[in-house]
């Protein structure tokens, strides 16, 4: 585990010293391969320690697995994506450095067991991904990066207040911030401290997750960055921040205050769905549409968490499904943007005519996102609806179904209007590189395969993760 954390730092130092593009690409590729091998290895060797601060259990292994998969796909993708850019050079070098630092901060957050370190890694992830968003340095992206860093820094400051309250609450036991200690002593902590701490943590880390109404930075930041960055932000960063909230939730759960947290989750989840639905009905920018869909899915996950233990399996499956399909959607949208040079939906027509393979991947990813079988989101939404009926939240069920239908309608009309129709005559000729689509096809394949056959290791991983929750 030491290597996983130290390697990005060493590699980025080397890249900073040598500033060679080929070396940068090679190092990122090496690291992503190492990452995925390490995660597969740790599937069979769960529960390892580094120091008391970093520990691997089933939940963190699960999140790490998704991150490793996405990092591999995105690294392969970005080798071919940045080929046609004009000022490749020093800028791309800095991009690779910040890219590795970003991955380091995310994996550090997942692995750490101390709230203080979690906070440090969260802040580091904001700071390192700001440059990634602002890679192209246009007006839209600079303003988006400014909004991102500002709102997320405020959010992280709120999370800090929550962590201080947790520390004050555990002062009788020495002011510990370790998750396991807090869970063990949760009953003895003053419940008011726990409640206030959770409220601040969900407000703060919810900013990074993208729960409405703290989502103001998400549409612009996810749509203005280059597509591999958007895929990573949507696919992993939101999950990572969600893990932070889940750790706090576990503490309150063992103190029997789960009902309070579930109310908060429900409020934020419904608000996210509402905001997302209100945009989707008339969207003009397909990358913003995908960003709002991230907000919606995070809202669905929050609602899943609010249903109590019956919803946990649905939440885990939904996290998997959302990350993989959102990543493939973003990467495909990058290909579309390279072909049509516009981000507006009206500017893209006749994808099926110009390039049937791209259209196939685009539509298939979209279908996987909205929940068609055999993709995982189908199962997760089914389980969610079953859990809602079981726990008697009928009104919630109706509102949920109406909002999701609206979102599917909005997204679907945009996606299909982009794919079919007469091809517009454009002057841009674009040579498709196979690398650009291989990743998405791989992800989609994985999702289909999971439905029918799951290796036993992954099966035990998921069930352990659920039991930890």
């Amino acid at each position, binding site marked *: 585990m030491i290597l996983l954390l130290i390697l990005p730092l060493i590699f980025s130092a080397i890249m900073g010293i040598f500033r060679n593009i080929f070396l940068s690409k090679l190092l990122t590729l090496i690291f992503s391969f190492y990452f995925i091998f390490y995660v597969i290895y740790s599937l069979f060797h769960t529960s390892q320690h580094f120091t008391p601060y970093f520990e691997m259990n089933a939940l963190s292994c699960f999140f790490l697995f998704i991150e490793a998969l996405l990092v591999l796909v995105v690294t392969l993708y970005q080798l071919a994506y940045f080929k046609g850019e004009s000022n490749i050079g020093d800028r791309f070098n800095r991009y690779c450095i910040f890219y590795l630092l970003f991955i380091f901060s995310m994996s550090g957050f997942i692995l750490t067991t101390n709230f203080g370190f979690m906070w440090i890694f969260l*802040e580091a992830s904001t700071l390192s991904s700001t440059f990634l968003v602002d890679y192209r340095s246009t007006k839209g992206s600079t303003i988006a990066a400014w909004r991102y*860093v500002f709102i997320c820094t*405020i959010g992280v400051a709120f999370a800090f207040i929550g962590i201080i309250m947790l520390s004050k609450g555990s002062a009788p036991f020495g002011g510990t911030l370790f998750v396991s200690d807090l869970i063990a002593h949760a009953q003895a902590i003053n419940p008011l401290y726990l409640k206030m701490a959770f409220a601040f943590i969900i407000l703060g880390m919810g900013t990074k997750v993208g729960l409405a109404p703290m989502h103001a930075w998400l549409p612009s930041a996810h749509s203005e960055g280059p597509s591999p960055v958007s895929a990573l932000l949507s696919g992993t960063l939101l999950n990572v921040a969600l893990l932070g909230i889940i750790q706090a939730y576990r503490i309150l759960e063992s103190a029997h205050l789960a009902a309070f947290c579930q109310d908060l989750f429900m409020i934020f989840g419904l608000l996210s769905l509402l905001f997302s639905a209100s945009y989707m009905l008339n969207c003009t920018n397909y990358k913003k549409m995908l960003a709002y869909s991230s907000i919606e899915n995070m809202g669905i996950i929050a609602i899943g968490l609010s249903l109590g233990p019956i919803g946990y399996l649905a939440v885990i499956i939904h996290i998997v499904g959302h990350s993989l399909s959102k990543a493939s959607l973003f990467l495909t949208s990058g290909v579309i943007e390279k072909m049509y040079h516009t981000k507006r939906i009206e500017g893209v027509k006749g994808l099926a005519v110009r390039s049937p393979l791209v259209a196939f991947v685009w539509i298939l990813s979209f279908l996987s996102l909205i929940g068609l079988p055999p993709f995982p989101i189908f199962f997760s939404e089914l389980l969610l609806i079953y859990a809602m009926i079981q726990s008697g939240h009928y009104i919630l069920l109706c509102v949920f179904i109406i909002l999701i239908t609206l979102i599917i309608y909005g997204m679907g009309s945009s996606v299909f209007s982009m794919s079919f129709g007469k091809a517009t005559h454009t002057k841009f000729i674009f040579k498709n590189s196979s690398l650009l689509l291989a990743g998405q096809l791989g992800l989609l394949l994985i999702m289909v395969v999971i439905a029918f056959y799951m290796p036993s290791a992954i099966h035990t991983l998921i069930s352990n993760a659920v039991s930890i929750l």
Partner: protein
Amino acid sequence: MENMLILLFCLVTLVGEVKSRVSSHIKVIVWQGILLFLIFIFDSTGAPIASIIFIGIEVLLIRAIVIPIILNRILGSTESHFEAEHKLSSFYSLLIMALLFISGFFIAYGVNKLFTGISPLQFGMAISTILMGLYLILSRKKMISHIMGYVIMENGILLLSFSLLGDMPLLISVGVLIDFFIGILLFRYYTLKIFQNGYDKRGKI
């Protein structure tokens, strides 16, 4: 004596709301830094003298001197002087800020019954300052006003952590400071970039 200081700490934020110039907000931040230092000196008990002096000087130095200097540089280089423009009218803005200030008292009163071991006025005023800083961020149009609101919020968070944890443990204080600092530097970088490329209109995005 320290009650007076805590009250003044929150009152200067209110005063900063009334004045309409952006540079008066910087003076508010300077006053808050000095008051924080004084509160810290008057109220810390039990910790070794060296630690108190070190943290006190660090608070004074960074929050009352270095941060305002950086803010002044941002102000000068992005040429967004003069009025801090409101989105609401200044009358209702003042009303809301005053309500937030008074709610600090009510929070202090409510907390007094429920918690033990913390100073209630400090807690209430700290939360009130955080809310006022948040309101400053939400209700102003200029980017520099947003940054000022963030700094005021950070000052409130420092007071809050001080009231909850007694004296500041060194690690937390240094960690917060580093984060705060890097945040401000990054803000400066981006505001400068936005200004130099002409993406803003007199300081507003």
